[in-house]
């Protein structure tokens, strides 16, 4: 049943009896046309766009836990397309455009809120870099504008503008950026994919990838062997583990990234704001909690929990930008496992094994990319070739040297 006002009113008079589960709990079939490994945002979006754009409906999404139990439910919910590299901008801008029409498309309230993303700069060289990035965005038709100190102060008056070490000079603003209710993205895509016939198989862990003569033939799972000639991996932090099953070693390290939420307060922070002198980003959820995060802990980890030094660092950066944060109490913190790539950009590509497709290397940027990632991955799986939006995001770029290194720090995953 569609989610709309008419049905809400009707059900109010019918005792809410006709609502059905948002997706089915089917038994695995013996064979599918494509299997997506990983029931997170990217996997579910891939299944949805395979069904919608490529008319492939005999598809399964296999997930070892419950859908949305990984990074799509562990991020800081930010969407934006304020990138610099030519290989990245069209991809992330496509993602932002898909976010803008997502709720109507999948008939699910994902609370897309284009509240504006501000990247604060603290000195002249950062200002020049921000303006350059803004120009790069505008050359690609993306909105970006530079706010000087006075304009920024009018918009966000409560930051520490005269901080002795990190005075605020201005900010790069992308007004179309913002936040989205993260869990709703997983649920919305799951419901929309299910409605088009996609089987979502939860508690179905992949334990092996079977290949014959250099081509995939199916996956071994905790619920038995499932045949398929096309297998797409969308496993984020666990990508290396699953790829090992097919004998692949990848240009990926898994790292833990922590995030935090404070007690709920009245509306304070209207936008998404990032600190330029370190790595700190913050927004306010609709429930009132301030949601924020910083850098990864910096060492390989699959633990989904981080350590205290990073908590301290993030808190220090937050207070340097907003002294008033010092009065707030943090309610919760959690960790997610990032698939950090060697140049800080993702990989959406085929592999040397026929029928095995790869979607990984999302670093910090996976959530905002969800719609375009699914859209491009579906194209790559269905057509067996990349779309122009993910043409630069090749696995082989590390051999050919065509890296997409947004920050220019080289092959050191914990610095991206």
């Amino acid at each position: 049943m569609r989610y709309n006002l008419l049905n809400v009113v009707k059900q109010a008079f019918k005792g809410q009896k006709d609502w059905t589960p948002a997706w089915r709990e089917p038994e695995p079939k013996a064979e599918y046309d494509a299997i997506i490994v990983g029931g997170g945002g990217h996997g579910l979006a891939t299944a949805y766009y395979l069904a919608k754009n490529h008319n492939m409906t005999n598809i399964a999404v296999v997930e070892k836990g419950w859908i949305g139990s990984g990074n799509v439910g562990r991020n800081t919910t930010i969407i934006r397309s304020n990138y610099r590299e030519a290989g990245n901008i069209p991809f992330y801008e496509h993602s932002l455009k898909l976010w803008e029409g997502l709720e109507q498309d999948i008939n699910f309230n994902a609370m897309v809120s284009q509240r504006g993303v501000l990247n604060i700069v603290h000195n002249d060289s950062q200002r020049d870099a921000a303006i350059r990035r803004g120009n790069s965005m505008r050359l690609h038709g993306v909105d970006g504008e530079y706010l000087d100190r006075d304009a920024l102060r009018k918009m966000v008056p409560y930051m520490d503008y005269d901080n002795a070490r990190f005075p605020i000079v201005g900010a790069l603003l992308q007004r179309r950026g913002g936040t989205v209710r993260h869990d709703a993205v997983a649920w919305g895509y799951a419901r929309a994919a299910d409605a088009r016939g996609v089987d979502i198989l939860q508690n179905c862990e992949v334990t092996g990838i079977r290949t014959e003569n250099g081509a995939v033939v199916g996956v071994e799972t905790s619920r038995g062997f499932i045949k398929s000639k096309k297998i797409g991996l969308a496993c984020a932090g666990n990508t290396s583990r699953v790829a090992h099953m097919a004998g692949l070693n990848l240009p990926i390290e898994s790292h833990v990234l922590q995030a935090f939420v404070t007690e709920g307060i009245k509306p304070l922070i209207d936008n998404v704001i990032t600190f330029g002198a370190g790595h700190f980003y913050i927004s306010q959820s609709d429930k009132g909690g301030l949601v924020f995060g910083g850098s990864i802990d910096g060492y390989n980890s699959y633990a989904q929990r981080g350590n205290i030094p990073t908590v301290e660092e993030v808190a220090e950066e937050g207070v340097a930008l907003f002294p008033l944060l010092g009065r707030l109490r943090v309610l919760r913190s959690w960790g997610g496992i990032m698939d950090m790539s060697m140049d800080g950009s993702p990989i959406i590509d085929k592999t040397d094994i026929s029928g095995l497709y790869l979607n990984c290397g999302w670093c910090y940027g996976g959530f905002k990319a969800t719609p375009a990632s699914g859209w491009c991955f579906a194209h790559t799986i269905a057509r067996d070739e990349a779309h122009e939006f993910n043409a630069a995001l090749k696995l082989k770029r590390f051999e050919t040297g065509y890296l997409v290194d947004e920050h220019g720090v080289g092959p050191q995953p914990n610095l991206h």
Partner: protein
Amino acid sequence: MRITCPHCGPRTSEEFTYLGDANPKRPDGTGIENMKAWHDYVHIRRNPAGEHQELWYHASGCRAWLVVTRNVSTHEIFGVELAAGECA
């Protein structure tokens, strides 16, 4: 996380800088025949979910490079050795 440095004893991980997997070996020679080996050395990582040998630099201490054996799923540390060997 606390790392027991062979020179300095148990120290907080904040004193150390992390480089990464200690297993990839730098190839000999820079000829075209070594391109694949260099690609693997620079970019490809095993990235296991369990025990991991990794290079840490004691930047705020004795400035020695260490090979730490650690379970990356639990953060438990099993052993710390000098990267240059005991006689360094």
